[in-house]
Protein backbone atom coordinates (compact mmCIF):
# COMPACT_ATOMS: atom_id res chain seq x y z
CA UNK A 1 0.00 0.00 0.00
CA UNK A 2 1.24 3.43 -0.93
CA UNK A 3 1.90 5.51 2.14
CA UNK A 4 3.49 8.80 2.92
CA UNK A 5 4.76 8.58 6.49
CA UNK A 6 3.93 11.45 8.75
CA UNK A 7 1.19 12.68 6.53
CA UNK A 8 -2.32 12.63 7.95
CA UNK A 9 -5.05 10.68 6.13
CA UNK A 10 -7.38 13.64 6.54
CA UNK A 11 -6.61 17.18 7.55
CA UNK A 12 -9.18 19.96 7.54
CA UNK A 13 -8.87 23.59 8.50
CA UNK A 14 -11.84 25.86 9.08
CA UNK A 15 -14.11 23.79 6.88
CA UNK A 16 -17.45 25.52 6.52
CA UNK A 17 -20.62 24.79 4.62
CA UNK A 18 -23.58 27.09 4.21
CA UNK A 19 -26.90 26.29 2.54
CA UNK A 20 -28.33 29.74 1.97
CA UNK A 21 -28.35 31.32 5.45
CA UNK A 22 -28.26 27.96 7.20
CA UNK A 23 -24.92 26.88 8.61
CA UNK A 24 -24.52 23.11 8.13
CA UNK A 25 -20.85 22.96 9.16
CA UNK A 26 -19.46 25.92 11.09
CA UNK A 27 -15.74 25.44 11.41
CA UNK A 28 -14.41 21.91 11.18
CA UNK A 29 -10.73 21.48 11.91
CA UNK A 30 -9.49 17.97 12.51
CA UNK A 31 -6.60 15.66 11.80
CA UNK A 32 -7.07 11.95 11.21
CA UNK A 33 -3.79 10.02 11.48
CA UNK A 34 -3.12 7.21 9.04
CA UNK A 35 -3.82 3.62 9.98
CA UNK A 36 -6.39 4.42 12.66
CA UNK A 37 -10.05 3.76 13.15
CA UNK A 38 -11.39 7.21 13.72
CA UNK A 39 -14.84 7.80 15.22
CA UNK A 40 -16.84 10.83 14.18
CA UNK A 41 -19.59 11.49 16.71
CA UNK A 42 -22.27 14.04 17.17
CA UNK A 43 -26.01 14.41 17.59
CA UNK A 44 -28.42 14.44 14.67
CA UNK A 45 -27.97 17.57 12.60
CA UNK A 46 -24.42 18.17 13.89
CA UNK A 47 -23.11 18.29 10.32
CA UNK A 48 -21.54 14.82 10.22
CA UNK A 49 -22.92 13.70 6.87
CA UNK A 50 -22.28 17.09 5.28
CA UNK A 51 -18.70 16.95 6.54
CA UNK A 52 -18.22 13.49 5.04
CA UNK A 53 -19.69 14.66 1.73
CA UNK A 54 -17.23 17.56 1.67
CA UNK A 55 -14.31 15.25 2.43
CA UNK A 56 -15.39 13.01 -0.44
CA UNK A 57 -15.79 15.90 -2.85
CA UNK A 58 -19.54 15.30 -3.19
CA UNK A 59 -20.20 18.78 -1.80
CA UNK A 60 -18.08 21.89 -2.18
CA UNK A 61 -17.05 23.65 1.05
CA UNK A 62 -18.18 27.28 1.32
CA UNK A 63 -14.78 28.05 2.83
CA UNK A 64 -11.82 26.37 4.51
CA UNK A 65 -9.76 23.55 3.16
CA UNK A 66 -9.65 19.79 3.37
CA UNK A 67 -6.72 17.56 2.43
CA UNK A 68 -7.47 13.88 1.93
CA UNK A 69 -4.52 11.50 1.51
CA UNK A 70 -2.36 14.54 0.88
CA UNK A 71 -4.48 15.94 -1.93
CA UNK A 72 -7.33 18.46 -1.93
CA UNK A 73 -10.67 16.74 -1.25
CA UNK A 74 -12.48 15.67 -4.41
CA UNK A 75 -9.25 15.07 -6.36
CA UNK A 76 -10.23 12.55 -9.04
CA UNK A 77 -7.05 10.43 -8.99
CA UNK A 78 -7.09 10.17 -5.18
CA UNK A 79 -10.60 8.66 -5.28
CA UNK A 80 -9.05 5.40 -6.45
CA UNK A 81 -7.61 5.14 -2.93
CA UNK A 82 -10.88 5.92 -1.14
CA UNK A 83 -13.85 3.69 -0.29
CA UNK A 84 -17.23 4.87 0.89
CA UNK A 85 -20.30 3.23 2.36
CA UNK A 86 -23.08 5.83 2.32
CA UNK A 87 -25.74 5.87 5.01
CA UNK A 88 -28.68 3.69 3.91
CA UNK A 89 -26.75 2.26 0.99
CA UNK A 90 -28.93 1.87 -2.10
CA UNK A 91 -27.99 0.77 -5.56
CA UNK A 92 -29.43 -0.48 -8.81
CA UNK A 93 -31.85 -3.12 -7.63
CA UNK A 94 -31.70 -5.01 -10.91
CA UNK A 95 -28.05 -6.00 -10.31
CA UNK A 96 -27.05 -9.17 -8.49
CA UNK A 97 -24.69 -8.94 -5.52
CA UNK A 98 -21.75 -10.22 -7.58
CA UNK A 99 -22.51 -7.85 -10.46
CA UNK A 100 -22.67 -4.91 -8.07
CA UNK A 101 -19.19 -5.68 -6.74
CA UNK A 102 -17.85 -6.21 -10.24
CA UNK A 103 -19.28 -2.89 -11.41
CA UNK A 104 -17.90 -0.95 -8.44
CA UNK A 105 -14.56 -2.65 -8.82
CA UNK A 106 -14.41 -1.71 -12.50
CA UNK A 107 -15.44 1.88 -11.79
CA UNK A 108 -12.71 2.04 -9.15
CA UNK A 109 -10.15 0.92 -11.71
CA UNK A 110 -9.61 -2.74 -10.76
CA UNK A 111 -8.91 -5.02 -13.76
CA UNK A 112 -11.67 -7.47 -14.74
CA UNK A 113 -9.38 -10.49 -14.35
CA UNK A 114 -8.49 -9.49 -10.81
CA UNK A 115 -12.16 -8.91 -9.99
CA UNK A 116 -13.11 -12.42 -11.08
CA UNK A 117 -10.91 -13.63 -8.26
CA UNK A 118 -11.73 -10.89 -5.78
CA UNK A 119 -15.54 -10.66 -6.05
CA UNK A 120 -16.28 -14.15 -4.60
CA UNK A 121 -13.82 -13.46 -1.78
CA UNK A 122 -15.55 -10.23 -0.81
CA UNK A 123 -19.02 -11.76 -1.11
CA UNK A 124 -17.80 -14.46 1.27
CA UNK A 125 -16.24 -11.90 3.59
CA UNK A 126 -19.61 -10.23 4.18
CA UNK A 127 -21.38 -13.58 4.51
CA UNK A 128 -23.48 -13.35 1.36
CA UNK A 129 -22.13 -16.26 -0.68
CA UNK A 130 -25.53 -18.06 -0.76
CA UNK A 131 -27.08 -14.84 -2.12
CA UNK A 132 -24.39 -13.80 -4.59
CA UNK A 133 -26.58 -14.34 -7.66
CA UNK A 134 -29.71 -12.81 -6.18
CA UNK A 135 -30.86 -9.45 -7.36
CA UNK A 136 -30.61 -6.63 -4.85
CA UNK A 137 -34.38 -6.08 -5.05
CA UNK A 138 -34.67 -9.24 -2.94
CA UNK A 139 -32.18 -8.06 -0.33
CA UNK A 140 -33.09 -7.03 3.22
CA UNK A 141 -31.75 -3.81 4.70
CA UNK A 142 -29.06 -5.72 6.57
CA UNK A 143 -27.97 -7.57 3.41
CA UNK A 144 -27.77 -4.25 1.55
CA UNK A 145 -25.50 -2.87 4.28
CA UNK A 146 -23.26 -5.91 3.96
CA UNK A 147 -22.93 -5.72 0.20
CA UNK A 148 -22.50 -1.95 0.52
CA UNK A 149 -19.57 -2.53 2.84
CA UNK A 150 -18.05 -4.99 0.35
CA UNK A 151 -18.32 -2.44 -2.49
CA UNK A 152 -16.54 0.14 -0.32
CA UNK A 153 -13.61 -2.27 0.11
CA UNK A 154 -13.41 -4.16 -3.20
CA UNK A 155 -10.63 -1.92 -4.57
CA UNK A 156 -8.60 -2.18 -1.34
CA UNK A 157 -8.68 1.53 -0.54
CA UNK A 158 -6.30 3.30 1.82
CA UNK A 159 -9.02 5.40 3.38
CA UNK A 160 -12.52 4.13 4.04
CA UNK A 161 -15.50 6.27 5.00
CA UNK A 162 -18.28 4.34 6.68
CA UNK A 163 -21.48 6.24 7.38
CA UNK A 164 -23.57 4.26 9.87
CA UNK A 165 -22.21 0.87 8.71
CA UNK A 166 -24.12 -1.15 11.32
CA UNK A 167 -27.52 0.38 10.69
CA UNK A 168 -30.06 -2.35 10.02
CA UNK A 169 -27.72 -5.13 11.17
CA UNK A 170 -28.42 -7.76 13.80
CA UNK A 171 -25.83 -8.47 16.54
CA UNK A 172 -24.08 -11.08 14.34
CA UNK A 173 -23.91 -8.59 11.48
CA UNK A 174 -22.54 -5.91 13.78
CA UNK A 175 -19.82 -8.23 14.98
CA UNK A 176 -18.95 -9.11 11.38
CA UNK A 177 -18.66 -5.43 10.48
CA UNK A 178 -16.51 -4.82 13.55
CA UNK A 179 -14.16 -7.64 12.55
CA UNK A 180 -13.97 -6.38 8.97
CA UNK A 181 -13.16 -2.85 10.15
CA UNK A 182 -10.38 -4.17 12.35
CA UNK A 183 -9.04 -6.29 9.49
CA UNK A 184 -8.87 -3.16 7.37
CA UNK A 185 -6.77 -1.46 10.03
CA UNK A 186 -4.48 -4.52 10.13
CA UNK A 187 -4.08 -4.07 6.37
CA UNK A 188 -2.90 -0.51 7.05
CA UNK A 189 -6.04 1.33 5.97
CA UNK A 190 -7.54 4.28 7.77
CA UNK A 191 -11.22 4.00 8.68
CA UNK A 192 -13.37 7.08 9.22
CA UNK A 193 -16.42 5.86 11.06
CA UNK A 194 -19.66 7.70 11.65
CA UNK A 195 -22.07 5.82 13.87
CA UNK A 196 -24.83 6.43 16.35
CA UNK A 197 -24.01 3.23 18.20
CA UNK A 198 -21.59 4.59 20.79
CA UNK A 199 -20.93 1.17 22.27
CA UNK A 200 -19.80 0.01 18.82
CA UNK A 201 -17.56 3.02 18.43
CA UNK A 202 -16.13 2.49 21.87
CA UNK A 203 -14.94 -1.03 21.18
CA UNK A 204 -13.84 -0.37 17.60
CA UNK A 205 -12.25 3.05 17.39
CA UNK A 206 -8.76 4.21 18.28
CA UNK A 207 -9.77 7.81 18.54
CA UNK A 208 -12.99 9.79 18.49
CA UNK A 209 -14.03 13.38 18.04
CA UNK A 210 -17.32 14.88 19.09
CA UNK A 211 -18.78 17.50 16.83
CA UNK A 212 -21.65 19.87 17.39
CA UNK A 213 -22.93 22.38 14.83
CA UNK A 214 -20.04 21.45 12.60
CA UNK A 215 -17.32 22.14 15.12
CA UNK A 216 -15.09 19.77 17.06
CA UNK A 217 -16.12 20.04 20.72
CA UNK A 218 -13.71 17.51 22.17
CA UNK A 219 -11.72 14.44 21.23
CA UNK A 220 -10.62 11.33 23.06
CA UNK A 221 -7.99 8.70 22.47
CA UNK A 222 -9.66 5.43 23.40
CA UNK A 223 -6.41 3.41 23.47
CA UNK A 224 -4.88 5.17 26.44
CA UNK A 225 -6.20 4.73 29.96
CA UNK A 226 -7.94 7.94 30.74
CA UNK A 227 -6.16 10.29 33.11
CA UNK A 228 -9.32 12.25 33.33
CA UNK A 229 -11.98 12.23 35.99
CA UNK A 230 -13.16 8.87 37.28
CA UNK A 231 -16.51 8.14 38.83
CA UNK A 232 -16.18 5.87 41.90
CA UNK A 233 -18.78 3.91 43.78
CA UNK A 234 -17.98 2.78 47.34
CA UNK A 235 -19.82 0.49 49.76
CA UNK A 236 -18.47 0.77 53.28
CA UNK A 237 -19.55 0.55 56.92
CA UNK A 238 -18.66 3.22 59.46
CA UNK A 239 -18.20 6.09 57.07
CA UNK A 240 -17.18 9.13 59.16
CA UNK A 241 -19.91 11.83 59.32
CA UNK A 242 -17.61 14.43 57.82
CA UNK A 243 -16.45 12.14 55.00
CA UNK A 244 -17.44 14.63 52.32
CA UNK A 245 -15.26 17.38 53.79
CA UNK A 246 -12.40 14.93 54.32
CA UNK A 247 -12.46 13.80 50.69
CA UNK A 248 -13.02 17.28 49.26
CA UNK A 249 -9.38 17.80 48.18
CA UNK A 250 -9.57 14.83 45.73
CA UNK A 251 -13.24 14.50 44.83
CA UNK A 252 -16.29 16.32 43.53
CA UNK A 253 -20.03 15.61 43.26
CA UNK A 254 -20.30 13.32 46.33
CA UNK A 255 -23.53 11.42 47.00
CA UNK A 256 -24.03 9.53 50.29
CA UNK A 257 -26.79 7.05 50.96
CA UNK A 258 -26.18 5.16 54.25
CA UNK A 259 -23.44 2.67 53.39
CA UNK A 260 -23.08 3.80 49.83
CA UNK A 261 -20.89 6.64 48.68
CA UNK A 262 -20.34 7.82 45.13
CA UNK A 263 -18.05 10.61 43.95
CA UNK A 264 -15.96 11.75 41.03
CA UNK A 265 -12.22 11.59 41.63
CA UNK A 266 -10.28 14.47 40.12
CA UNK A 267 -7.76 12.02 38.67
CA UNK A 268 -6.76 8.37 38.84
CA UNK A 269 -3.75 9.34 40.98
CA UNK A 270 -6.14 10.53 43.68
CA UNK A 271 -7.70 7.08 44.20
CA UNK A 272 -5.10 5.65 46.66
CA UNK A 273 -5.32 8.87 48.69
CA UNK A 274 -9.10 8.50 48.91
CA UNK A 275 -8.80 4.89 50.11
CA UNK A 276 -6.19 5.82 52.74
CA UNK A 277 -8.38 8.69 53.95
CA UNK A 278 -11.46 6.47 54.26
CA UNK A 279 -9.57 3.77 56.22
CA UNK A 280 -7.96 6.37 58.47
CA UNK A 281 -11.45 7.69 59.20
CA UNK A 282 -12.52 4.22 60.43
CA UNK A 283 -14.49 3.00 57.43
CA UNK A 284 -14.65 -0.71 56.55
CA UNK A 285 -14.57 -0.90 52.77
CA UNK A 286 -16.47 -3.75 51.06
CA UNK A 287 -16.48 -2.35 47.57
CA UNK A 288 -14.50 0.34 45.79
CA UNK A 289 -15.30 0.53 42.06
CA UNK A 290 -13.76 3.17 39.80
CA UNK A 291 -15.62 3.33 36.50
CA UNK A 292 -14.19 4.96 33.45
CA UNK A 293 -16.77 7.26 31.96
CA UNK A 294 -18.37 5.39 29.09
CA UNK A 295 -18.48 7.03 25.70
CA UNK A 296 -22.21 7.42 26.16
CA UNK A 297 -21.73 9.26 29.46
CA UNK A 298 -19.03 11.39 27.88
CA UNK A 299 -21.33 12.09 24.91
CA UNK A 300 -24.11 13.22 27.22
CA UNK A 301 -21.79 15.29 29.39
CA UNK A 302 -20.36 16.99 26.28
CA UNK A 303 -23.57 17.43 24.33
CA UNK A 304 -26.04 17.81 27.19
CA UNK A 305 -29.05 15.55 27.72
CA UNK A 306 -30.89 17.10 24.79
CA UNK A 307 -28.12 15.98 22.48
CA UNK A 308 -27.04 19.52 21.83
CA UNK A 309 -30.15 20.25 19.83
Amino acid at each position, binding site marked *: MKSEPGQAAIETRGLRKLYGDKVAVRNLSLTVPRGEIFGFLGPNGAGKSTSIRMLLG*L*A*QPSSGEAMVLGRPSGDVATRRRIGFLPE*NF*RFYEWLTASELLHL*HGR*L*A*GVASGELRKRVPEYVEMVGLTPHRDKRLENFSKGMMQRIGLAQALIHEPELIFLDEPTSGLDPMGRRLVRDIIRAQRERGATVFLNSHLLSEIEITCDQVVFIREGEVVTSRDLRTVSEEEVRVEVRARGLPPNVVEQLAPWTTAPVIDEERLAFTARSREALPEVVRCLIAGGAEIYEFTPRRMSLEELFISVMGRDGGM
Partner: protein
Amino acid sequence: MATVTFREAARKKMLWTALLAGLGFLALFAIGLHFQIADFSRTTPPFVRYQILSGMLMIGLYTVDLLAVVMTILTSADTIAGEISSGTIHAIAIKPMPRWQILIGKWLGFAAMLAVYVAIMFGGTVAVVYEIAGLTPQHPIDGAMLVYWECLIVLSISFMFGTWFSTLTNGVIVLGLQGLAFMGGWLEQMSGFAEGSRLAMVGIVASILMPTEAVWRRAAYDMESPLAGALQQFAIFSDVSIPSPAMIAYASVYLVIVLSIALYHFANRDL
Protein backbone atom coordinates in the same frame (compact mmCIF):
# COMPACT_ATOMS: atom_id res chain seq x y z
CA MET B 1 -21.74 3.75 -17.62
CA ALA B 2 -23.23 3.45 -21.10
CA THR B 3 -23.37 -0.34 -20.93
CA VAL B 4 -24.90 -0.14 -17.44
CA THR B 5 -27.73 1.97 -18.87
CA PHE B 6 -28.32 -0.64 -21.57
CA ARG B 7 -28.32 -3.47 -19.08
CA GLU B 8 -30.66 -1.55 -16.81
CA ALA B 9 -33.16 -1.06 -19.63
CA ALA B 10 -33.02 -4.75 -20.50
CA ARG B 11 -33.30 -5.96 -16.89
CA LYS B 12 -36.10 -3.60 -16.00
CA LYS B 13 -37.95 -4.97 -19.04
CA MET B 14 -38.16 -1.36 -20.23
CA LEU B 15 -36.47 -2.18 -23.52
CA TRP B 16 -38.65 -5.22 -24.19
CA THR B 17 -41.88 -3.48 -23.22
CA ALA B 18 -41.08 -0.57 -25.52
CA LEU B 19 -40.23 -2.91 -28.39
CA LEU B 20 -43.36 -4.99 -27.79
CA ALA B 21 -45.54 -1.87 -27.79
CA GLY B 22 -43.73 -0.76 -30.95
CA LEU B 23 -44.40 -4.07 -32.68
CA GLY B 24 -48.06 -3.75 -31.62
CA PHE B 25 -48.18 -0.37 -33.29
CA LEU B 26 -46.60 -1.72 -36.48
CA ALA B 27 -49.11 -4.59 -36.61
CA LEU B 28 -52.05 -2.21 -36.12
CA PHE B 29 -50.65 0.13 -38.73
CA ALA B 30 -50.22 -2.73 -41.22
CA ILE B 31 -53.81 -3.95 -40.67
CA GLY B 32 -55.15 -0.40 -41.06
CA LEU B 33 -53.22 0.13 -44.26
CA HIS B 34 -54.34 -3.23 -45.62
CA PHE B 35 -58.01 -2.36 -45.12
CA GLN B 36 -57.47 1.11 -46.49
CA ILE B 37 -56.27 -0.36 -49.77
CA ALA B 38 -58.98 -3.02 -49.78
CA ASP B 39 -61.61 -0.30 -49.44
CA PHE B 40 -60.43 1.60 -52.49
CA SER B 41 -63.13 1.32 -55.16
CA ARG B 42 -62.35 0.80 -58.78
CA THR B 43 -63.34 4.35 -59.46
CA THR B 44 -60.91 5.90 -56.97
CA PRO B 45 -58.64 8.04 -59.15
CA PRO B 46 -54.95 7.04 -58.96
CA PHE B 47 -53.81 10.45 -57.73
CA VAL B 48 -56.31 10.31 -54.83
CA ARG B 49 -55.10 6.78 -53.97
CA TYR B 50 -51.55 8.07 -54.02
CA GLN B 51 -52.51 11.05 -51.92
CA ILE B 52 -54.24 8.90 -49.29
CA LEU B 53 -51.42 6.35 -49.12
CA SER B 54 -48.81 9.12 -48.85
CA GLY B 55 -50.89 10.55 -46.03
CA MET B 56 -51.01 7.15 -44.29
CA LEU B 57 -47.24 6.86 -44.59
CA MET B 58 -46.74 10.27 -43.04
CA ILE B 59 -49.25 9.54 -40.26
CA GLY B 60 -47.33 6.36 -39.49
CA LEU B 61 -44.01 8.17 -39.39
CA TYR B 62 -45.45 11.02 -37.31
CA THR B 63 -46.75 8.48 -34.79
CA VAL B 64 -43.30 6.90 -34.66
CA ASP B 65 -41.86 10.35 -34.03
CA LEU B 66 -44.31 11.02 -31.17
CA LEU B 67 -43.77 7.58 -29.67
CA ALA B 68 -40.00 8.02 -29.80
CA VAL B 69 -40.15 11.43 -28.12
CA VAL B 70 -42.52 10.25 -25.37
CA MET B 71 -40.41 7.12 -24.88
CA THR B 72 -37.32 9.33 -24.52
CA ILE B 73 -38.99 11.44 -21.83
CA LEU B 74 -40.46 8.50 -19.91
CA THR B 75 -37.27 6.48 -19.81
CA SER B 76 -34.80 9.26 -19.13
CA ALA B 77 -36.64 11.57 -16.68
CA ASP B 78 -35.60 9.47 -13.68
CA THR B 79 -32.05 8.54 -14.57
CA ILE B 80 -30.23 11.56 -13.14
CA ALA B 81 -32.93 13.06 -10.92
CA GLY B 82 -33.84 9.72 -9.34
CA GLU B 83 -30.27 8.72 -8.57
CA ILE B 84 -29.56 12.08 -6.98
CA SER B 85 -32.67 12.01 -4.78
CA SER B 86 -32.17 8.37 -3.71
CA GLY B 87 -28.46 8.87 -2.99
CA THR B 88 -27.55 6.06 -5.40
CA ILE B 89 -25.32 8.54 -7.20
CA HIS B 90 -23.06 8.93 -4.11
CA ALA B 91 -21.42 5.53 -4.52
CA ILE B 92 -20.74 6.28 -8.20
CA ALA B 93 -19.74 9.93 -7.96
CA ILE B 94 -16.83 9.12 -5.63
CA LYS B 95 -15.26 6.79 -8.16
CA PRO B 96 -12.05 7.95 -9.88
CA MET B 97 -13.62 9.56 -12.92
CA PRO B 98 -14.77 13.11 -13.53
CA ARG B 99 -18.47 13.59 -12.97
CA TRP B 100 -19.09 14.68 -16.54
CA GLN B 101 -18.06 11.19 -17.63
CA ILE B 102 -20.85 9.66 -15.55
CA LEU B 103 -23.41 11.88 -17.23
CA ILE B 104 -22.03 11.48 -20.75
CA GLY B 105 -21.82 7.70 -20.24
CA LYS B 106 -25.49 7.55 -19.33
CA TRP B 107 -26.35 9.88 -22.20
CA LEU B 108 -24.51 7.65 -24.67
CA GLY B 109 -26.32 4.59 -23.30
CA PHE B 110 -29.69 6.23 -23.86
CA ALA B 111 -28.60 7.57 -27.25
CA ALA B 112 -27.69 4.03 -28.34
CA MET B 113 -30.99 2.62 -27.11
CA LEU B 114 -32.95 5.34 -28.86
CA ALA B 115 -31.01 4.64 -32.06
CA VAL B 116 -32.17 1.02 -31.90
CA TYR B 117 -35.73 2.06 -31.12
CA VAL B 118 -35.96 4.66 -33.90
CA ALA B 119 -34.32 2.29 -36.40
CA ILE B 120 -36.79 -0.51 -35.64
CA MET B 121 -39.89 1.67 -35.52
CA PHE B 122 -39.02 3.92 -38.43
CA GLY B 123 -37.65 1.10 -40.54
CA GLY B 124 -40.68 -1.04 -39.63
CA THR B 125 -43.16 1.63 -40.70
CA VAL B 126 -41.35 2.25 -43.99
CA ALA B 127 -41.16 -1.52 -44.63
CA VAL B 128 -44.88 -2.02 -43.87
CA VAL B 129 -45.91 0.75 -46.28
CA TYR B 130 -43.55 -0.52 -49.00
CA GLU B 131 -44.75 -4.09 -48.58
CA ILE B 132 -48.49 -3.30 -48.56
CA ALA B 133 -48.75 -0.16 -50.68
CA GLY B 134 -45.49 -0.22 -52.67
CA LEU B 135 -44.74 3.31 -51.56
CA THR B 136 -41.51 4.72 -50.07
CA PRO B 137 -40.83 8.11 -48.53
CA GLN B 138 -38.35 10.46 -50.17
CA HIS B 139 -34.99 10.59 -48.34
CA PRO B 140 -35.95 8.08 -45.60
CA ILE B 141 -32.43 8.11 -44.09
CA ASP B 142 -32.46 11.89 -43.74
CA GLY B 143 -35.91 11.68 -42.19
CA ALA B 144 -34.91 8.96 -39.72
CA MET B 145 -31.80 10.89 -38.76
CA LEU B 146 -33.85 14.01 -38.07
CA VAL B 147 -36.33 12.06 -35.93
CA TYR B 148 -33.39 10.59 -34.01
CA TRP B 149 -31.89 14.06 -33.69
CA GLU B 150 -35.17 15.25 -32.21
CA CYS B 151 -35.00 12.45 -29.60
CA LEU B 152 -31.44 13.44 -28.70
CA ILE B 153 -32.56 17.04 -28.11
CA VAL B 154 -35.36 15.83 -25.82
CA LEU B 155 -32.91 13.46 -24.09
CA SER B 156 -30.45 16.29 -23.44
CA ILE B 157 -33.19 18.54 -22.04
CA SER B 158 -34.36 15.73 -19.78
CA PHE B 159 -30.77 15.22 -18.55
CA MET B 160 -30.30 18.97 -18.02
CA PHE B 161 -33.44 19.50 -15.92
CA GLY B 162 -32.73 16.20 -14.17
CA THR B 163 -29.62 17.79 -12.66
CA TRP B 164 -31.88 20.42 -11.02
CA PHE B 165 -35.27 18.90 -10.37
CA SER B 166 -36.96 15.74 -9.12
CA THR B 167 -38.05 13.04 -11.55
CA LEU B 168 -41.67 14.14 -11.65
CA THR B 169 -40.91 17.86 -12.05
CA ASN B 170 -38.37 17.04 -14.73
CA GLY B 171 -40.87 14.92 -16.65
CA VAL B 172 -43.55 17.61 -16.39
CA ILE B 173 -41.14 20.31 -17.63
CA VAL B 174 -39.88 18.32 -20.62
CA LEU B 175 -43.36 17.13 -21.58
CA GLY B 176 -44.60 20.74 -21.20
CA LEU B 177 -41.84 22.01 -23.47
CA GLN B 178 -42.66 19.34 -26.02
CA GLY B 179 -46.31 20.44 -25.86
CA LEU B 180 -45.19 24.02 -26.45
CA ALA B 181 -43.15 22.96 -29.47
CA PHE B 182 -46.07 20.90 -30.78
CA MET B 183 -48.47 23.83 -30.51
CA GLY B 184 -45.89 26.26 -31.90
CA GLY B 185 -45.26 24.00 -34.86
CA TRP B 186 -48.92 23.83 -35.78
CA LEU B 187 -49.36 27.58 -35.31
CA GLU B 188 -46.46 28.17 -37.65
CA GLN B 189 -47.99 25.67 -40.07
CA MET B 190 -51.35 27.43 -39.94
CA SER B 191 -49.66 30.80 -40.47
CA GLY B 192 -48.95 29.67 -44.02
CA PHE B 193 -52.65 30.04 -44.72
CA ALA B 194 -52.93 33.41 -42.97
CA GLU B 195 -52.06 36.81 -44.30
CA GLY B 196 -50.26 38.30 -41.29
CA SER B 197 -46.89 37.22 -39.93
CA ARG B 198 -47.78 37.49 -36.24
CA LEU B 199 -48.97 33.90 -36.04
CA ALA B 200 -45.73 32.75 -37.66
CA MET B 201 -43.78 34.78 -35.09
CA VAL B 202 -45.51 32.98 -32.21
CA GLY B 203 -44.63 29.66 -33.82
CA ILE B 204 -41.02 30.70 -34.40
CA VAL B 205 -40.60 31.84 -30.79
CA ALA B 206 -41.98 28.46 -29.63
CA SER B 207 -39.52 26.70 -31.96
CA ILE B 208 -36.62 28.75 -30.59
CA LEU B 209 -37.57 27.75 -27.05
CA MET B 210 -38.00 24.11 -28.04
CA PRO B 211 -36.95 23.29 -31.62
CA THR B 212 -38.03 19.62 -31.66
CA GLU B 213 -41.26 20.03 -33.59
CA ALA B 214 -39.43 22.18 -36.16
CA VAL B 215 -36.99 19.29 -36.65
CA TRP B 216 -39.93 16.93 -37.27
CA ARG B 217 -41.52 19.33 -39.77
CA ARG B 218 -38.22 19.50 -41.63
CA ALA B 219 -38.10 15.69 -41.60
CA ALA B 220 -41.69 15.55 -42.90
CA TYR B 221 -40.82 18.02 -45.67
CA ASP B 222 -37.76 15.99 -46.66
CA MET B 223 -39.71 12.73 -46.73
CA GLU B 224 -42.89 13.87 -48.44
CA SER B 225 -43.11 13.15 -52.17
CA PRO B 226 -42.98 16.14 -54.54
CA LEU B 227 -46.44 15.23 -55.83
CA ALA B 228 -47.97 15.22 -52.35
CA GLY B 229 -46.16 18.46 -51.69
CA ALA B 230 -47.65 19.98 -54.83
CA LEU B 231 -51.12 19.07 -53.64
CA GLN B 232 -50.49 21.11 -50.53
CA GLN B 233 -54.00 21.97 -49.52
CA PHE B 234 -55.02 18.33 -49.37
CA ALA B 235 -52.01 16.89 -47.64
CA ILE B 236 -52.00 16.49 -43.86
CA PHE B 237 -48.33 17.22 -43.47
CA SER B 238 -48.04 19.65 -46.31
CA ASP B 239 -45.37 22.04 -45.32
CA VAL B 240 -46.76 25.42 -45.78
CA SER B 241 -44.09 26.84 -43.50
CA ILE B 242 -40.93 24.78 -43.92
CA PRO B 243 -38.22 25.07 -41.24
CA SER B 244 -35.06 26.31 -42.94
CA PRO B 245 -31.65 24.59 -42.74
CA ALA B 246 -30.75 27.45 -40.40
CA MET B 247 -33.42 26.18 -38.00
CA ILE B 248 -31.87 22.70 -38.11
CA ALA B 249 -28.45 24.25 -37.46
CA TYR B 250 -29.99 26.15 -34.55
CA ALA B 251 -31.46 22.90 -33.21
CA SER B 252 -27.98 21.36 -33.31
CA VAL B 253 -26.43 24.28 -31.44
CA TYR B 254 -29.35 24.07 -29.01
CA LEU B 255 -28.58 20.39 -28.33
CA VAL B 256 -24.89 21.12 -27.72
CA ILE B 257 -25.67 24.02 -25.38
CA VAL B 258 -28.29 22.09 -23.40
CA LEU B 259 -25.98 19.09 -23.02
CA SER B 260 -23.09 21.35 -22.00
CA ILE B 261 -25.24 23.01 -19.32
CA ALA B 262 -26.26 19.56 -18.06
CA LEU B 263 -22.61 18.46 -17.88
CA TYR B 264 -21.46 21.68 -16.22
CA HIS B 265 -24.24 21.75 -13.64
CA PHE B 266 -23.90 18.07 -12.79
CA ALA B 267 -20.11 18.42 -12.43
CA ASN B 268 -20.39 21.38 -10.08
CA ARG B 269 -23.49 20.81 -7.99
CA ASP B 270 -23.49 19.31 -4.51
CA LEU B 271 -24.65 15.71 -4.40
